[in-house]
């Protein structure tokens, strides 16, 4: 299994951002992380990427514990944040060059980089400085860099922001292809249609807790069995609105 999260808690001072989250993403699976703003999706992804330290719980990426074997875990993953920042004074190609060096890629990496540039329509921009690129272009560069080392665990936070229609299609196709090749993929997004299109399973967060998890096809089947015909959007709104307004969770309360 590629991604395992057990009893993950994240507490900031007196605020509980994520509380007791447990899930796993198998190779070939595309898991959609959905939930209202501030539900704990990005906090979870950042912990998986090794940026945040869990207050409690365990995170494994490709069998490597993020707490004790972070370098090996990070070698296997790619994390693209919701607003990736590039090095302003470096060209597109120099970003790839650095990533190749950081992940100790074999000498054949330029060929793979060329393919990625082609896929994301960046070939003509290879010599452009990051500061000269549009928001969408920068997003494409960050995704391309993330895919260069063929990660077995892919974490994407709002990956379609700023992409043009062709970029969106390429992104979807690439994610599906990577999953078919055995990568475990997690996508956090507010675009529920994207999640329905692309993901095989879903994890719904609300106030730091998982309120729904399962395979999308099974959720649809169960809804049909219950005599309901509801989209993921309907389900999302029903479940998040069903939750009674509660005071913010605090560290003492958990």
């Amino acid at each position: 299994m590629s991604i395992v999260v057990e009893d993950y808690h994240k507490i900031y001072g007196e605020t509980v951002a994520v509380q007791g989250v447990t899930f796993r993403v198998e190779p070939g699976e595309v898991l959609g992380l959905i939930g209202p703003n501030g539900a704990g999706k990005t906090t979870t992804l950042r912990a998986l990427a090794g940026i945040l330290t869990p207050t409690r719980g365990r995170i494994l990426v490709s069998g490597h514990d993020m707490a004790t074997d972070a370098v090996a875990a990070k070698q296997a993953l790619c994390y693209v944040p919701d607003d990736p920042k590039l090095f302003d004074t470096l060209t597109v190609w120099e970003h790839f060059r650095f990533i190749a060096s950081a992940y100790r890629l074999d000498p054949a990496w330029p060929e793979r980089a060329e393919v990625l540039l082609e896929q994301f329509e960046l070939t003509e921009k290879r010599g452009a400085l990051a500061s000269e690129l549009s928001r969408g272009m920068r997003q494409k560069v960050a995704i391309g860099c993330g895919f260069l080392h063929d990660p077995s665990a892919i974490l994407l936070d709002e990956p379609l922001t700023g992409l043009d229609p062709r970029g969106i299609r390429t992104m979807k196709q690439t994610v599906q292809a990577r999953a078919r090749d055995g990568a475990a993929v997690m996508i956090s997004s507010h675009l529920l249609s994207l999640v329905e299109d692309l993901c095989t399973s879903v994890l719904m967060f609300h106030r730091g807790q998982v309120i729904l998890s399962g395979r999308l096809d099974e959720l649809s089947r169960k809804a049909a069995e219950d005599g309901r015909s509801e989209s993921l959007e309907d389900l999302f709104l029903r479940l998040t609105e069903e939750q009674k307004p509660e005071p913010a969770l605090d560290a003492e309360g958990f």
Partner: protein
Amino acid sequence: MDPALVLLLRLRLWGWLRRMGRKLGTAKGLLLTAVGLMIFAPSILAVFLDPKPRGAAMQIEGFQRFGPVLLLVYCLSTLLFSPGDKAFAFSPAEISFLFPAPFTRRKLLAYKIGGNLALTLLMGIFMSFAFRQNTRFWPFGYVGLVLAFSFLQLFAMAVTLAGQAIGARASTRRRQLAVALIVVLVGATLVSVGWRSLAGLTPLEALKKLEATPAVQVALAPFRPFVLAISAGRLWPDFLLWAFVGFAINAALVAAILLLDTQYLEAAAASSERFYAKLERMRKGGPSVSSRNPNKKWKQVPALPWWGGVGPILWRQVTTAYRDFARVLVVPITMLVLAGVGIYVARGHFHLPLGGGDPDVVMGFAGIILGTVLVMSPIVSFDFRSDFERMEGLKTLPLSPLQVVMGQLATPAALICASQALAFAILAVATWPVAPLFWGIVAFAIPLNVIMLEVENLMFLWFPSRPMAHTPGDVQAMGRMMVIMIAKMLSLALITGVAAGLGLLAYLAGGWVAFVIVAWLGMMLSALLIMPLLGVAFQAFDVASDTVS
């Protein structure tokens, strides 16, 4: 250091040089570089023509004596005021690319130290020109400064990591309290022991005596090698010996930092996010402070009347200023301090009853308070200067350019004028009676403040720029600052010169009163005439321009 991180440093250095080179390819870039280099040309030439400056022995002696004290004070302030994670301000790109990448924390620390050293090597060149009078031989001064600045950076990093190693983030306040307590205890002991021997001495004499005590000498010992290396006169033993000791101290700090290797990534990411969010807010012109609590209820400023279209614009800027109160407060506090110093110098004491004092000194300080607009103007930039990213919005408002201009300028003008009025009033009451010319100086406050703000905004609208972090050694940025400053000063000199010229003609006919009245009218007229010019500049402002200064 990891080879990939070395490659990144190399690529970034090359990228910086490439960008400088590209800018040099344009006429504007070439001109700004030339102006920037002109600032340092005399210092650079002096280094080659006179590598061993003479006649600065006294200054060097003072530097050797008090330089270590300054370093000690800096380090103590780092211990006292360090927020715990400030030394690790990684850029957003570094967080995006390096934190999820397969690097150990130690490798990232080594990268940070290496990057800081590269910047220090560059910054040291310019600092060595500024410190030239404290050195006997420029190369020694340069190396000594690089070692000293590296020491300060490494010390701050070591403090941060040590703080985090002992449970830092939660105990930052306790740590600061502990250090403050130690400082108070040490200070109290020193005072109680040495009070009698220091009694009757001037502050400078007392400081010299205190500095000569064995306890202070021991406290200053780790800082002395850097100062002695900077001011060394001979290669051996002076420079090589002290530079080696300084290098060894830095190496020990590097070893300590790498050994500490605490879990700093999360704190660094959070700290960097706060820092860059603050930079972004400043860039957009919002308040430089913000609450970390998203649910904070901000106090409201009551809506202002329409006032011919000026009211809504004024209300927005007043609200911004109100929510950035700490920044605004600097202005009246500075004025009040100046008034206090003026009263003390004019009267020789603060004792009651009020009144009396040297009228010339009072007038001098009134002039200084009047001139503070030159320094205070950038602090209260609640006008076009902080609205770079909102110019589109301002242009779409159903208001005439003149209405927008008046609304934009009213807040900073009112803030400076009110602060000055308070300081003038206190100065006058405490030293009553004041000379009639004092009121002449007071009268010029309004036109001078308005003109200064108009010129600042005019320069901004003609040569738009927004604040960004500069790399040390960016001569083009320095050149740009220089050109704009010269333009501002020339504009101000021209306007005040014309007003003074008119006043002089009136003086010949009717004396000082006529001079003040005519010059004041001339200044007010100029202030009014620049308003439409600002309106034209606002209308002509190209929102597509995206200039980073």
